[in-house]
């Protein structure tokens, strides 16, 4: 029992989860016997509360716990003691947050040895986002996503297996969006959007194991449906109320139906001690059919009445093929040589019949079309060598070749599409990796890894160009004491004749945990995440090309967690924790700083966003009887931005609950 207690203390002392549910379970961890089954079960029922001061929208976006009675957690494990249960040998059910939490889940596994295994996972996630810095907050969302996955495997340990699966993903809820009307100089108008998106996926597959080779085949069908109509709730002057542009009515619907049948074939074989090979082939035939009907009425910038109807329909296809072949050789003891060759081909083809009626005048219908093709070939070779138990070294070489082809254009309906010049780009990446592990003492591990890569034509400024990434970690772990320190860096530089781009990411940190006695444990971590990027920008102002400007961003995030757990008189468990995240930026006192890298105040003001996000918590769990516990906890959330208080909030949350088994 002492061992169990110690492990229990350690197991809760690593993450900084919300204050509820509690990790202390009521009841006997070894369970109770009933017939030929052993049963372990418990649940925690309680009341959660939250009071929020400041920006409630930001609280909902980052935390979102509310008031009410919750089944905070529950678990049930039924295990056959002899492995010969009548209907099942193993049953697991666990839930979290049922009854109103923004993050709810339920897991079920039921299994009969050698006959079947069924897994189910259900999840609900409420997503609230006012996102003031994205589209002035006019793209706020308050949606709920529910997901469920069902997987049934027949004969899970046999030479022949059968897989059946079903998944469902449903997103519903209100949202805001915008549209820009009635011409390129027109205003932007806020709209209401009733989000409804639904995915159903069905899977059927099998596996056969013969003559040392295992063949796995899976065929799936994904069906996607979306209809999120948009409307104007009241006449709007738009984001610029000083002009005459206005929207008096708006209605838009765009039902979308997509299907994505796919195949996945895998083949494996391990030649005992000398080699292993596996291959995989996948093909996804993505397709979407859509129709858009949009009707708007209002006034133009010049104050003229305007009615606009847009009708669009068409199809989009994206067949994707990927194949992989991995060969592992074990030419000598302690040597592993692995080579993987991969190829993928993605083609995107679309046609969209676009018709516009402007004040009753029908514009010529046109058929825009676009083609985008991406072909990638890559090969990686890795060598691992274990010359001694205390030393491992590995190195590798990666080569990747990608070809991108794009065609864009439009034609009048009925006319042949005009020949468009294809825009092509090819680039190659060559990278080398090297790393080693040292274990000079049984409790001490030192690991160092590095990767240096060169891409000859990065497609975007932020793509990997000339990059180098290094990582080092030292860990000392002796029984129930562990301490580690690490450092990581990732530098990337891209340059061309007009502008240059450079990013520097560095991360340092240390963490540790210690259980000096069975009734006390402590863990702590500190991480410093530094990022700075500098990229050149050219743009036009009053028709004049402005060059020499730069987009500069810097963040210096300090993140720390501290947790301690006490057990008092073998009856009460007390947990106190603290999480602190602070971006100190570059230390400037005002948004504009010293005017570095740009003469434009709008650019200076977005170079850094210092903020602080902290959350202390405390929880007590008292064992009333061997099968009953009382729990209570408090957690504070504080969010504060340095340059604006508009989104700041302070939230006091907590709970009280009973945890019991029966």
């Amino acid at each position, binding site marked *: 029992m002492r061992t169990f207690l110690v492990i229990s203390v350690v197991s809760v002392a690593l993450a900084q989860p919300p204050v509820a549910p509690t990790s202390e379970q009521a009841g006997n961890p070894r369970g109770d016997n009933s017939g030929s089954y052993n049963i372990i079960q418990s649940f925690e029922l309680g009341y959660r509360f939250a009071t929020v001061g400041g920006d409630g929208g930001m609280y909902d976006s980052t935390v979102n716990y509310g008031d009410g009675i919750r089944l905070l957690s529950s678990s049930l494990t039924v295990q056959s003691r002899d492995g010969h249960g009548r209907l099942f040998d193993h049953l697991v059910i666990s839930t979290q947050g049922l009854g109103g939490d923004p993050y709810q889940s339920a897991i079920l596994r039921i299994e009969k040895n050698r006959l079947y295994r069924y897994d189910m996972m259900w999840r609900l996630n409420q997503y609230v986002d006012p996102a003031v810095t994205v589209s002035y907050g006019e793209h706020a969302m308050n949606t709920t996503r529910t997901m469920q996955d069902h997987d049934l495997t027949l004969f899970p340990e046999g030479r022949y297996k059968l897989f059946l699966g079903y998944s469902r993903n449903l997103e519903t809820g209100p949202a805001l969006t*915008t549209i820009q009307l009635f011409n390129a100089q027109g205003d932007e108008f806020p709209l209401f959007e009733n989000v409804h998106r639904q995915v159903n996926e069905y899977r059927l597959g099998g596996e056969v194991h013969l003559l040392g080779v295992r063949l796995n085949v899976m065929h799936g069908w994904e069906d996607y449906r979306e209809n999120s109509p948009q409307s104007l709730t009241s006449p709007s002057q738009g984001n610029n109320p000083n002009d005459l542009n206005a929207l008096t009515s708006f209605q838009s619907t765009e039902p979308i139906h997509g299907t994505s049948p796919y195949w*996945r074939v895998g083949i494996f074989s391990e030649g005992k001690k000398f080699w292993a090979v596996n291959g995989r082939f996948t093909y996804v035939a993505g397709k979407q059919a859509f129709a858009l009907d949009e009707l708007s009425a209002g006034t133009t910038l010049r104050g003229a009445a305007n009615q606009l109807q847009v009708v*669009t329909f068409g199809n989009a296809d994206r067949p994707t093929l990927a194949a992989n072949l991995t060969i592992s050789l074990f030419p000598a003891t302690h040597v592993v040589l692995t080579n993987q060759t*991969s190829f993928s081909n993605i083609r995107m083809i679309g046609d969209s019949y676009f018709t516009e009626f402007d004040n009753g005048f029908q514009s010529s219908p046109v058929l825009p079309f676009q083609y*985008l093709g991406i072909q990638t070939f890559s090969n990686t070779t*890795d060598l691992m060598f274990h010359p001694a138990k205390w030393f491992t070294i590995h190195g590798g070489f990666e080569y990747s070749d990608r070809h991108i082809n794009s065609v864009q254009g439009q034609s009048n309906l009925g006319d042949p599409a005009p020949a468009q010049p294809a825009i092509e780009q090819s680039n190659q990446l060559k990278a080398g990796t090297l790393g080693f592990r040292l274990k000079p003492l049984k409790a001490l591990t030192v690991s160092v890894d590095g990767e240096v890569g060169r891409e000859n034509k990065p497609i975007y400024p932020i793509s990997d160009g000339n990059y180098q990434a290094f990582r080092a970690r030292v860990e000392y772990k002796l029984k129930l004491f562990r301490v580690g320190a690490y450092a990581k860096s990732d530098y990337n530089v891209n340059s061309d004749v007009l502008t240059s781009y450079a990013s520097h990411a560095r991360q340092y*940190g240390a963490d540790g945990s210690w259980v000096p006695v069975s009734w006390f444990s402590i863990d702590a*971590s500190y991480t410093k995440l530094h990022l700075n990027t500098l990229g050149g920008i050219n743009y036009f102002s009053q028709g004049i090309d402005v060059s020499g400007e730069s987009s500069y961003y810097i963040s210096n995030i300090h993140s720390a967690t501290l947790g301690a757990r006490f057990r008092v008189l073998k009856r009460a468990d007390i947990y106190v924790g603290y999480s602190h995240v602070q971006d100190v930026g570059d230390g400037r006192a005002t948004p504009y700083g010293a005017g570095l890298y740009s003469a434009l105040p709008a650019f200076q003001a977005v170079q850094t966003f210092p903020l602080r996000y902290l959350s202390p918590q405390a929880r007590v769990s008292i064992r009333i009887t061997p099968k009953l516990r009382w729990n209570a906890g408090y957690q504070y959330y504080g969010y504060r931005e340095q340059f604006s208080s508009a989104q700041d909030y302070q939230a006091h949350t907590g709970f009280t609950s009973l945890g019991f088994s029966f």
Partner: protein
Amino acid sequence: MKFLRAVSAALFLTALSLASDYVGSDACKTCHAPVFNQFFRNPHYQSIASAKESPENTGCESCHGPGKAHIAAHGGKATIVAFSEIGPEKTLDACLRCHSQTLSRANIRKSAHTQADVVCTNCHSIHNSKAPRFLLAKQEQRDLCYSCHSTVKAQFSMPFKHRVNEGSVQCTDCHNPHGAFAATWGMAVRSHMVDQKQGNEEACLKCHADKRGPFVYEHASVRIDGCQTCHMPHGSTNPRMLTRPTIFTVCLECHNGAGTFGIMNNGVFHLSPTHNLADPRYQNCTTCHVRIHGSNADALFMR
């Protein structure tokens, strides 16, 4: 014929000798009663329950090897396969003897975990598992991953993050800790063990199905370099887990007017001449370009 008989006899005697080194799991119970008494909870107990497996594939000895010498020596780690002693390489080999040929573990030999000497027993506790599924060494999967990936733990403590600490998202929703196939996005070689939806698409699309398309007008960067072009998937101090706090600075990272990047790398500028960035109107790109992940109606993602 005599030669064949001699060989057959020799092979039979060898097999008999090896088989006789196996003593059965009941013999282990004598000294390891606490482990044995709880072993019925273990998925490996199936090998005992079935009573159909060969001795080397049954119960304790299927992993720890034949126990005869161990019993004769009255215990000791030198006379049995003790996983605390054999090192990561042999631990991996021992587990893969049965667990190698599964699609999700196809790349375990070359995974970053294996290269870091992180093998099966670092994450799975066969006899002291706290989790009801997968014999995980800790009750929560996230705690397992955080114990090494401290920077990731820090990212999930940010204000905007996937709800891993809250329990509604798990690391394995996006990652395959046993190693992943080459990605079909980016340059295919730095996948960071990211799992793939439907076999070959980015893991993000498993939940964010509306971003999947296909669209008539794809935002090429989404398909070519992936979602991480604009988003930080673990967590961020920025809304919507963007790489920058304001939207136009995200867009300007690529749409910077430099004509030598992008698929239109023939000198075409990636920024409209009508967009005067000094005008606040043009500092909130997605207010007009609302369908930024892809559109079926407008090449500029306006509807």
